[in-house]
């Protein structure tokens, strides 16, 4: 179970991972569209109306950014890194994020965040109803767990693809991840 959830890249073949990753990406785009969510960066999700094409392009941009930056980083560490292994890392590692839109069933979180607006959090919490506050708190806690899960998957995939070991590899991975996040935010903002 631990291998399946955190280290699938060590065990499963390219074909299995590719099929799973592509199907999950398509389903993820559909779920985000139906539940009015948008992935607007590697680590950013907003609640907004969108189209299915827009949702799909968002996912493709994120996967491409992750692939490009992680592949460059992996090549710096290990010359024999294969592109397919990095593509699979990006495809599979993003799967946990596709669970997050389910928190917005009936636009629950969209309404809550709108109610929050730009107001100072401690002030507004006392004025919010428990019905509005609970989904936000639940989403925040689960979101943090999903974020850690996603980073663990990304690092394990990267480590397997690039035979990465040690602090230097971790630093290069971290920089690549931050650059992928920045690039994806810009590209989604300007292109989509």
């Amino acid at each position, binding site marked *: 179970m631990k291998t399946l959830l955190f280290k699938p*890249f*060590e065990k*499963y*073949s390219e074909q299995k991972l590719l099929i799973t990753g592509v199907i999950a990406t398509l389903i993820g785009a559909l779920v985000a569209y139906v539940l009015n969510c948008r992935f607007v960066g590697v680590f950013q999700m907003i609640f907004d109306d969108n189209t299915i094409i827009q949702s799909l392009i968002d996912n493709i941009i994120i996967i491409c950014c992750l692939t490009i930056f992680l592949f460059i980083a992996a090549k710096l560490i290990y010359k*024999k890194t294969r592109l397919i292994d990095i593509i699979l890392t990006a495809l599979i590692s993003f799967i946990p994020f596709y669970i997050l839109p389910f928190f917005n069933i009936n636009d629950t979180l969209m309404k809550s965040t709108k109610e929050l607006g730009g107001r100072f959090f401690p002030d507004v919490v006392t004025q919010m109803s428990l019905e509005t506050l609970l989904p936000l708190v639940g989403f925040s806690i689960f979101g943090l767990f999903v974020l850690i899960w996603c980073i663990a998957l990304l690092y394990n995939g990267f480590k397997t*693809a690039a*035979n990465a070991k040690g602090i230097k590899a971790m630093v290069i991975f971290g920089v690549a991840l931050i650059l992928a996040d920045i690039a994806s935010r810009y590209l989604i903002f300007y292109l989509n």
Partner: protein
Amino acid sequence: MKKLPVNCPSCESPLVASQLSCSECETVISGSYSLPVLLQLSKEDQDFIFEFILTSGSLKKMAAKMAKSYPTVRNKLDDILEKINALKTN
């Protein structure tokens, strides 16, 4: 099968073969023979190399046989190569 010790349990230096004997006529040869590099690897690494030869050096076949992914098997081979190079240098 008993595991061949390759390092001294006391000081961890590499061991050498100092006596060889014939099980048929009980002839004993004494000397100081260093162990081949492959014998100095762990049992797990030796088994991996054995499997590698049996699959004609195909990492893809090995990955399927070991129920591991291709990069995992390739990384294992690279780690063994690193160990062999380190042993050859010493």
